[in-house]
């Protein structure tokens, strides 16, 4: 926190995204002092901003017991916990989410040294002392989020023991699922057969979000295809096409999706092979369209900003110039 204040955002000088005239495009402006995480993220897996906190996987991939650190929105470390699955030789966590009560949900797969393995959803209590592991086969979740009511939402798909869909798999099984905290299914949406490419179900190609009254899943393919699905409290699902870049010359790269408390959805995306053309879009649900917004703030050398998520009504960004200092910046729509 000390460092965060020290390195607080100082000046609003120039536009990060030189894509449109400021007067015509809504902008996001710095809303509070920046935050420097008092822990080096260098070399760490990309952390998860979830539940108004930053969850950093401390261990490397494939260890038997992954460990996480949790920093709250003031930069204070509030939890250091280990996910333990007895007799596991390798445990891979695909996603983390933090709930309002401070507990951590994780999804992934764990393997014993003799080759036995299964997917799981794990819940670690807020004090790190208790853990619940739910074995989920044949459903392998890759994205997870915790709704404000504590229930779990996941994205994944059914696979056999070899993590293949070639045999013994129900291709009509739903990919977006809703569970209570004991793992009991509460709902399921979107059959696997409606997705032509399993890459859309890869954790590297999707974000699962939650807000007070809805759950959103954003997924995309390199060629710019994809969709954003939203589930309402009534269980209705609405799908929107994802924003299209004005010109996609190489591959689409999505640098983050966030849903702040006021309900809008923001996505940060760019052309992976270009050094210009970074965009932030906001979803207009009524029109079913995405409108462009620009990020204003300190000028940075890089050409994009990573959208980590939302903290209350703020959007949490990290600029390339902040990578080395582990600094996060908060923005809100200009009023």
């Amino acid at each position, binding site marked *: 926190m000390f460092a965060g204040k020290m390195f607080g955002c100082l000046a609003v000088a120039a536009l990060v995204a030189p894509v449109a005239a400021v007067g015509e495009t809504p902008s996001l402006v710095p809303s509070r002092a920046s935050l420097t995480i008092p822990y080096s993220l260098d070399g760490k897996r990309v952390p998860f901003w979830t539940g108004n906190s930053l969850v950093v996987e401390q261990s490397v991939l494939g260890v038997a017991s992954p460990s996480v650190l949790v920093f709250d929105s003031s930069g204070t470390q509030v939890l250091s916990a280990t996910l333990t699955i007895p007799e596991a030789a390798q445990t891979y966590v695909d996603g983390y989410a933090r709930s309002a009560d401070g507990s951590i949900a994780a999804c992934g797969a764990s393997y*014993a040294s003799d080759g036995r393995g299964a997917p799981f959803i794990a819940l670690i209590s807020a004090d790190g002392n208790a853990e619940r592991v739910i074995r989920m086969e044949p459903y392998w979740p890759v994205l997870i989020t915790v709704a404000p009511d504590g229930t779990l939402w996941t994205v994944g798909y059914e696979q056999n023991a070899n993590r293949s869909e070639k045999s013994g798999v129900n291709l009509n099984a739903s990919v977006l699922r809703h569970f209570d905290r004991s793992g009991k299914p509460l709902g399921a949406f979107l059959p696997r057969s409606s997705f032509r490419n399993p890459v859309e179900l890869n954790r590297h190609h999707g974000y699962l979000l939650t807000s007070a009254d809805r759950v959103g899943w954003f997924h995309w393919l390199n060629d710019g295809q994809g969709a954003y699905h939203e589930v309402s409290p009534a269980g209705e699902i609405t799908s929107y096409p994802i924003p299209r870049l004005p010109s996609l010359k190489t591959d689409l790269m999505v640098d983050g999706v966030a849903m702040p408390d006021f309900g809008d959805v923001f996505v940060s995306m760019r052309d992976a092979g270009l050094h210009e053309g970074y965009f932030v879009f906001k979803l207009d649900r009524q029109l079913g369209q995405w409108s462009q917004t620009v990020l204003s703030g300190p000028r940075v050398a890089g050409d994009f900003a990573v959208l980590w998520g939302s903290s209350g009504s703020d959007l949490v960004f990290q600029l390339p110039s902040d990578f080395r200092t582990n600094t996060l910046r908060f923005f809100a729509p200009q009023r």
Partner: protein
Amino acid sequence: MARTVLPLWQPLPATTSSLPRSCTCGSCRGAFPASRSNQVRNRLTSLGQGFPDGRGVALAGRLQRHPDHRSAFHFHRVLGLVCQMRGPVWVGASDGRSGLYLESFSHSESWERPENVCLTPTGLRKMMVYVSRWYPSIIGLAATLAIVVSILSIRPVPQHKPDRIRITTASGRPLRNFFDGLKPDAKLRVNLAHLPKARECGSRKQGFLAHVGRMLGIGAVVHAYCPGLPCMACEVDIDYTYCHSECVGKWALLGYKPGPADQGLQMLAYSLCNGQDCNCYFGTCNNPDCP
């Protein structure tokens, strides 16, 4: 095999000129130019490094002052781990006890694990004496104040391992063991059996070739294989920070760090793409199905 405990105020290698003349770390041997800098600005660099992050880890990345000087955390020189990170590193009270720990790395002929030094009041006092001996009084005073501030700002967070673990199926049926009733996966077992070969490959210092694929934010997906070995292709999902976007879609050379037998082959990556460093990818090869 020198193992030295460096004092907190030892200047960090803010530039390459502050590095020792030679360094060997595991598989990495590199000669570094110039002699250690003794300039005041480097001493101040180390102070600035420690103060804002008194509760956390000193930021190796923050040492980067100029693009030519690069980061102090270079993977291509540190396949055995952070040989350049020779300065003091605050790691907080990692084991749940109150106190400060100082991790110190020394340059030696082989990589060695860092030494944890608990700063007891006695140790602290000795360090203060050291400060006053070697530094101008104003620097010593500043260091003392900074240490006090750091101590006061520390709020130890104990590392929790769950003492109550409940395992069930999705239907709620309790399981005695997570792996109960599962059939061993032959492919995974084969993959695990290949690990010694991979290490052999690693011992020949051939490393891995990797295709740096899709980036997620500031991470990447890497497809890697070990040249000269059949069937050691692997797909590695890696989403670690600070991968250069220039590396996307390029072939890169991966370093390696063999892990324990049951934990896969961990890999560190550095690049030959666009002539730039592509630090850092870090993951475990675990997929036997890759081409």
